[in-house]
């Protein structure tokens, strides 16, 4: 009997697979290197400030935030959460932070610094130092500070200023942010040099910074192409492909080539009117962290004609700016990182939507990617990815007449996200999207 393999509804990009494979390969290589004794640093997602510096110094970085997701998906997180609870950490804290704290407690208190045997994917070894970040949430530096209870490793908290939208236009404001960034990164370099016992190779940093900027520029252009109808690339491809740009995972020259290939493939699809799902009935924006463990849920929605054409602003590359005239790599890195934060500010101020880095981009997305609806995914234990969602929903409706569907989930308690319940809400939401499509027409919107 011939078993016919069911064709997946989402037509994934071919160019995504080698990119993803590179990311995975890099991860495994990095684990091997660490196991062979190469020092590792634990880092928080830092929106480009610190990563190019560590990359230029050839330091392996593991991201406990990502490892928290792995621990949750493989079912080992619970024992670390229980441990963190028993140690007195409030249970409502960021689930990934609790996972790491429980993990560190097990590793240091019970196993004398050895990686716990149950830890999936090679585990996280004791780091040389911790690179925290002030960007986006308080957990990012308080969590690493709290690790001091278990590990005698120093922490460097990367500053990440966040201006008000109006205030940002005060004369000289931007320059002050840049000044802070450059001085701060210079001191960070000195700190890293002290930790690893070698000097920064500034030419290498220069090249790394340029590649980082270029990789992200191409990646941005890929996503711009998704404005086409039907949309040629699904959010699932976005999430699979993003680590190479966001975490600088892998060799940057490889990544650049692979993103360029992706650009070509997406462009080809547009030229031949190929969409990423068979029939695009609804175009949607997704906010924020996806349910990593239930991504097949999007295939079910694709069967209903839901295409996810844009997503998760926190994972998107900055709007490109020309930094070719900036000779100091630290200044270039600073300006590039700042661009992630303030790239939407000017527009946001004009529209009077005051979440420049969080809420406003979703309005831009909905408008320019011509979305019929927004699927919001508030997470119980990641407040920073959830806080702005009610405001996003309110603004989308008030300013663009785009409705939102909110489906709760969590980053570690995976049971909270119930794909069946969520799917049951799909049909009524389609009626809502239809209704607002008419409303938008009546009000003169062009989609």
């Amino acid at each position: 009997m011939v078993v016919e393999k069911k064709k997946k509804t989402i037509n994934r990009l071919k160019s995504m697979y080698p990119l993803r494979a590179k990311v995975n390969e890099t991860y495994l290589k990095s684990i091997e290197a660490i196991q062979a004794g190469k020092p590792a640093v634990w880092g928080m997602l830092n929106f480009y400030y610190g990563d190019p510096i560590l990359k230029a110094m050839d330091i392996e970085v593991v991201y406990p935030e990502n490892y928290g997701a792995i621990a949750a998906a493989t079912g080992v997180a619970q024992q670390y959460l229980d441990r963190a609870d028993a140690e007195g950490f409030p249970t409502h804290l960021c689930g990934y932070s609790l996972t790491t704290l429980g993990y560190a407690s097990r590793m240091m208190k019970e196993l004398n610094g050895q990686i716990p045997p149950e830890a999936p994917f090679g585990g996280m070894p004791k780091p040389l130092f911790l690179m925290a970040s002030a960007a986006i949430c308080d957990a990012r530096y308080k969590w690493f500070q709290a690790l001091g209870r278990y590990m005698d490793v120093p922490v460097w908290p990367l500053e990440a200023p966040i201006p008000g939208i109006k205030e940002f236009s005060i004369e000289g404001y931007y320059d002050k942010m840049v000044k802070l960034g450059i001085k701060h990164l210079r001191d960070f370099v000195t700190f890293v040099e002290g930790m690893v016992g070698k000097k920064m190779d500034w030419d290498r940093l220069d090249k790394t910074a340029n590649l980082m900027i270029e990789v992200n520029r191409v990646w941005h252009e890929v996503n711009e192409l998704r404005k086409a109808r039907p949309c040629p690339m699904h959010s699932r491809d976005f999430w699979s492909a993003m680590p190479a740009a966001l975490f600088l995972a892998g060799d940057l020259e490889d990544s650049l080539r692979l993103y360029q290939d992706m650009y070509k493939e997406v462009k080809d699809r547009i030229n031949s009117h190929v969409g990423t799902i068979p029939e695009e009935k609804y175009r949607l924006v997704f906010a924020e962290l996806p349910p990593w463990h239930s991504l097949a849920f999007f295939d079910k929605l694709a069967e209903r004609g839901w295409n996810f054409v844009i997503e998760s602003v926190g994972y998107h590359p900055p709007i490109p700016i020309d930094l070719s005239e900036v000779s100091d790599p630290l200044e270039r890195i600073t300006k590039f990182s700042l661009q992630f934060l303030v790239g939407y500010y000017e527009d946001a101020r004009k529209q009077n939507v005051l979440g420049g880095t969080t809420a406003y981009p979703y309005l831009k997305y909905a408008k320019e990617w011509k979305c019929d609806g927004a699927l919001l995914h508030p997470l119980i234990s990641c407040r920073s990815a959830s806080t702005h969602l009610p405001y996003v929903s309110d603004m989308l409706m008030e300013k663009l007449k785009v409705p939102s569907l909110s489906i709760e989930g969590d980053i570690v308690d995976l049971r909270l996200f119930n794909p069946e319940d969520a799917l049951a809400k799909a049909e009524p939401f389609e009626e809502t999207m239809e209704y607002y499509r008419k409303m938008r027409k009546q009000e003169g919107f062009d989609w």
Partner: protein
Amino acid sequence: MSSKNKGLSKAQEIYLNRSQRARELKAAGKKIIGYPCVYVPLEMLTALDLVPYQTCGDIKEPVTEADRALPHSFCPIMRNCLDCALKGKNDFLDGMITIHSCDPQEKTARVWESYTNYPYFHFIDMPITVRPEALEYFKSQLNDFRKTLEAFTGKKLSADKLEAAIKSHNQQRALVRELYELTKPSPPLISGTEMVQVLKALTSLPVVGGNDLLTETMSEVKNRTAGPEKKSARLLIWSSTLDDTDIMQVFEAKANVVMNESCGGIRAYRSGVKFTADLLEGLADYYLNEITCARTFRQATLGETRKDYARDLQSRFGYLKGIIKEWKINGAIMLLVRYCDPFAFEMPSLKDYFDSLGVPSTYIEYDYTIGALAPLRTRVEAFLETIS
């Protein structure tokens, strides 16, 4: 204020009707500026003849309006503050100043500004470290703040006026510390509940009025014959904000709260602004360095490449050591508002620190609603039993 009350009863009256004095001042032509957090440099407002008014939550008020813009799993204090604002309880304000003291404050600031329509609104960014470049950046933030205040008032912020304002606010800080001296005896001469009333009254008054109130209160308390009765424990409460008498009474039913180490207590008053050639430098240093809130990242040595946990604890919590000794604290409560991440991460480490000093401590969480007070009481009583 129309009332003839003085000292403690005046403080109580203001506490119970906080906005009344602000409304009267407004009617008399003053401009009233709101702020939600002790990190806002009030000296700069005072120097421009603006009246600072702290916008607080109201534990008795169920949050309804703020649901529109903030999720349930979010700092309940900020939700409540915003809710009060959206319900028009601060409708007399001429402006509002918000600050990036923590992520919820930053996020709430955006929503607040977007949903209200005050003639003036300003957001101050604040770095997380006390590194020199961070301090310099924060000073530049205060300078920008100055510019927008000058544009709003049409007046220049002169060095003389700012210096005089710093003096008045420093005087207020010194008076509060003096008042706290009166909780050192056993029994204390003033209760934790009365302290909350006095300190919260200060946040509704111009600085000079506040200083008068403190002076009156001091002399009244020193001379009164019937003060608080002696209870079984002398407690220190460490929290983000404890500025509500209903909450304080939960603790004071069976203990004397002699130190409220929170933004509703001594935190904003423990030291003073230094006079520097550039006054903004002294202000930046005071607000970034001297206020000991968990939101600031501190370490034993800046940029240290080695870490020692005991020294780390000392750098983060060392200020509590003297308090514990001088106020003869025999129990510490770490009162956590649910979803307050900066303070929540501190809990086990702070407990380690209290343990190292031999002070029994417990961590209790609540959600800043009236309904949370009964379980809070049970937890407090259980703790008091363990230390009695």
